[in-house]
Structures are given as structure tokens and as C-alpha cells.
């Protein structure tokens, strides 16, 4: 089969971007990725978009193509919450591997910080809850993840300090990344003393709300020789889905990440031990900890102590979220997940300035949508 490669990657500024718009961020990210790939607008024959809070639309990808004045052969929007970016990359890979397209633009962006009233993003996010059986009880997304966190801590002995260390590692990476939204140094004590949102999750256990956009170009393998930069190969992809609403999750310890990663590793012909750098969805500290154990990077109950002793740092056992992740780099909806993808590309190209993991050859990227509901894993390789 023809392998899919990533030929272009770009992310806009991230943070509080006054004057930014949803489609403006999409356009900037798209043009940046096309230029990075050394392509022209006319080379793009497939377009995948995600969703937007500030410009919600039934046909966002058509709105985007009209805005850009492009007429691709394939065009669709994908919505799987935080798993969207990875699912888009998986779909783009399938489009080029099947011969349907040669260059697929995968583009995301939203101005959910400056483009919504205060509290607007939090209220919109809470709509992932069930309208009849969850909304009436005041469920927020952090509260739903806190339900999992409390269960997990009770079951496996994970501590608040261990969770806090995940946020601290992410911040240390963000400090090395001039683009990151939050770069003030923090300590474990700072996390534990920060405002409680929903016990046991403090505000510094939670992701940011940011403006920003990101895009990549997924191209057919045979185009690699002409690529402007070192192409990154998509070695394996996989998904796992168990529920949408947390009340209906079949387990509060194991989620679709297990199956998604197992499939992606299998298709890539690798195991978790072969991964040099990991960019894993970290909407909350508990999200990442749970995923690390469920995916198999650590045994059950062992990720917490490992994180506390620095396993996720650049020189640690599993350098993770090297750009700063959703808690420190930024979170702009579907673009939040795409930041992980773009960072993996930068790491494998060895162009992650100030935060490069030495000699990285294999990257793992993972997205989680809903309340640990929808999962998608990607394995990338340096060609």
C-alpha cells in the first residue's frame, strides 16, 4: 500500500489573539502548512475541517473552502471532540493511501478565548453532557473528568501531587517554547494551592482556553521525493470508542485509548517501548495519567510515581507534550489536538527549537474526545 506522509505543518500564534477570527485562523494555518510543504493552493485536492465554537456551522469545511476560494475533490468536516485532529489525520492518510487524493489539507482553528463572552467556552463544552440525564445536575467537563479522577485515585492510589507533577512538566516544556500561551514557572505546590474547580482537579490541573489555529498537509507517499522538508511517515493509526456520556462508560478505569493505541502500534509494527517522543491529549492531568497507563506506557498505578520523578521531561523515560500541551501551550478546540500533531512533526524533523528530544525517530500522538469517550492514536516515523 502507498504510505501516507506529512509534508507540511504550521501553527499560528496561540493565546489571547485580539482581532483573530475562526476563519482567519484557519486561513493562516492552511497557507502556512501549504507553504511549509512547498506546495501551491492548486495542489490541494482534499480538505478536512473540524468544528468551531465562535462560527458554528453545519458545513464548516464548505464555509472554509469558500472563504479560501478553493474547490477540492474531497471536502468534509469531522467532529469527534478532542479526538478530532487525530481522526482527521487518520482519515487524510486513508484518502491518500487509497489514491483518492494526493495532498489533503487538514485544518483547524478557533478564537474561543477572545471570540466568546467570559464563561462561554466552558458552557459550550458542558454540552457534551446528556441534555436529559446529565445537564440537570450541573455537570461541567472538568467535573466529569473529576469523577474519573476520584475513582482512579481511590482504586490505584494515584495522588494529587503525582497529578500536579504532570502539569509542572508541561509548564517546564512551555517555558522552553517561545510560542506557548502560559510560560510562568509553576511548582507542585502552586498546582495544589490553585483554585479547586471540581475536586480533586485544581485550575492548574486543567487545560487552557486559547485562540489559535494549526494545519498539516498529508500527501501520498510517492510525492515525498519532491517535498520541501523531510517528510514524516504515518506508520500506524487506530481508534477506540466506548461511550459518549460518562454515566454510560462501561469502565471508569479503561477507555478506548487502549484499543486505539494497540491498533496503531500493531499497524506500525512497534510497541510502546519504541516511542521516542509522545504528544498525548492532556485536557486534564488525570486525562494524561489514565492514558499513559491504559495505553501501556506504564503499568497500572505506576505512571503517577514515574511522572513525579520526571518521566515526562525532555530527558525522561517518555518525553511527553514537549510543546507544553493543552495545559500550558494552549487549547483552541480541535486545534488543541492539532498542536500535538504539529509538535510531533517538528520533533521528528528535529526542528523543535529549545525543546528537541535528541535523535527522535518515532513519535506517538493521541487524541481524546468527550469524557474519555472517543480516542484516536497515530504513530509517526522519521523517514
Amino acid at each position, binding site marked *: 500500500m502507498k504510505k501516507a506522509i506529512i509534508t507540511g505543518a504550521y501553527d499560528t500564534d496561540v493565546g489571547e489573539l485580539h482581532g483573530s477570527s475562526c476563519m482567519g485562523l484557519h486561513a493562516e494555518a492552511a497557507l502556512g502548512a501549504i507553504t511549509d510543504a512547498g506546495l501551491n493552493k492548486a495542489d490541494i485536492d482534499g480538505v478536512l475541517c473540524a468544528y468551531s465554537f465562535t462560527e458554528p456551522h453545519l458545513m464548516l469545511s464548505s464555509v472554509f473552502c469558500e472563504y479560501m476560494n478553493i474547490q477540492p475533490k474531497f471536502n468534509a468536516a469531522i467532529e469527534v471532540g478532542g479526538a478530532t485532529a487525530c481522526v482527521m489525520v487518520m482519515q487524510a492518510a486513508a484518502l491518500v493511501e487509497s489514491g483518492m487524493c494526493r495532498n489533503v489539507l487538514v485544518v483547524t482553528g478557533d478564537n474561543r478565548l477572545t471570540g466568546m463572552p467570559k464563561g462561554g467556552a466552558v458552557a459550550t463544552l458542558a454540552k457534551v453532557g446528556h441534555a436529559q440525564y446529565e445537564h*440537570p445536575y*450541573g455537570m461541567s467537563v472538568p467535573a466529569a473528568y*473529576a469523577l*474519573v479522577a*476520584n475513582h482512579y485515585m481511590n482504586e490505584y492510589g494515584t495522588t494529587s501531587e503525582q497529578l500536579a507533577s504532570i502539569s509542572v512538566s508541561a509548564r517546564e516544556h512551555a517555558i522552553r517554547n517561545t510560542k506557548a500561551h502560559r510560560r510562568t514557572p509553576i511548582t507542585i505546590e502552586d498546582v495544589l494551592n490553585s*483554585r479547586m474547580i*471540581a475536586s480533586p482537579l485544581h485550575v492548574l490541573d486543567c487545560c487552557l482556553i486559547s485562540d489559535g489555529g494549526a494545519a498539516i498537509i498529508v500527501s501520498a507517499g510517492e510525492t515525498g521525493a519532491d517535498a520541501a522538508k523531510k517528510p514524516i511517515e504515518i506508520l500506524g493509526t487506530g481508534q477506540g470508542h466506548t461511550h459518549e456520556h*460518562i454515566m454510560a462508560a462501561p469502565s471508569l478505569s479503561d477507555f478506548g485509548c487502549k484499543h486505539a493505541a494497540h491498533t496503531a502500534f500493531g499497524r506500525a509494527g512497534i510497541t510502546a517501548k519504541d516511542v521516542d517522543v509522545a504528544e498525548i491529549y492532556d485536557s486534564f492531568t488525570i486525562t494524561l495519567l489514565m492514558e499513559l497507563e491504559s495505553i501501556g506506557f506504564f503499568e497500572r498505578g505506576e505512571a503517577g510515581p514515574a511522572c513525579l520523578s520526571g518521566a515526562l521531561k525532555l530527558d525522561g523515560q517518555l518525553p511527553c507534550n514537549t510543546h507544553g500541551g493543552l495545559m500550558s501551550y494552549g487549547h483552541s478546540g480541535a486545534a488543541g489536538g492539532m498542536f500535538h500533531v504539529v509538535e510531533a512533526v517538528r520533533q521528528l524533523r528535529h526542528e523543535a527549537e529549545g525543546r528537541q528530544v535528541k535523535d527522535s525517530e518515532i513519535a506517538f500522538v493521541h487524541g481524546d474526545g468527550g469524557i474519555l469517550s472517543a480516542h484516536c492514536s497515530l504513530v509517526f516515523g522519521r523517514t
Partner: protein
Amino acid sequence: MTEKPIPVPNPDSVEFWKACNEEKFLIQTCNSCGKNQFYPRAICKHCHGSDLDWQPASGRGKVKTFTVVNHAPSPAFKEDLPYVLALIDLEEGVRAMMNVIGCDVVDVHIGMDIELTFEARGDQKIPQAKAI
């Protein structure tokens, strides 16, 4: 100040919400495979059969997990802060989300026994978990 959400029944759930107004929590039981389910659906989630009956729950259950919410998802819930959001396992083997009420938030714990109660929300009563 916005109002707290009031459930809007649909054809799958109209029986359930009607019974809540009579302070009964109905669970669907499948006549084909004998299993229970919550929330109400047009089909059995286990065997996809469509011959479903309603059984009233005993009203006894346990806290599977919970969180004390300190930051409200919308202004309507601000006056209740801090409140307990929980997943409740009813003794019939189904799980539902509720608030744990009737005790101090610091006294709520995993495995705690609760009994169902009902809270008026506009013209609709909604099930809640009361500390025993």
C-alpha cells in the same frame, strides 16, 4: 440569572419522566434477554430487542464516584456551590448521574449508601441521591 436545565422528554423517555413526577424511578427491562438498562432507549442496548418493560427501582444505591464542584458550568448553578456531582449505582445494576444531597459535601465518600429522592425542577421532578 438563567434557570437550571429542566429535562425535555422525548418519545424514548416520556414514560420515565412521567413516573419521576410520581416519584418513581423506572428502569427498562428487556423481555428478550432479561437485562436492565438506563437511560431509556427505543431498543435494548444489550441484545437490540425492542420488547421492553418498565420496572420501578427499589430506590437504594451507592455512590460509585463523585466530585465536589466548586466552579459552576453556568450561572444557574452558582448559588449551589459547592455541590456534589456523582455517579450512582442503583441496586438493580444501572448507573445514573445525580447530585448527592442531604449531607455536608465533606461527608460524601465512594461506596456511600444513598436513597433516591426527587427534586422539583419547574413542572418536572428529577431524581436525586439522598444520603442515608
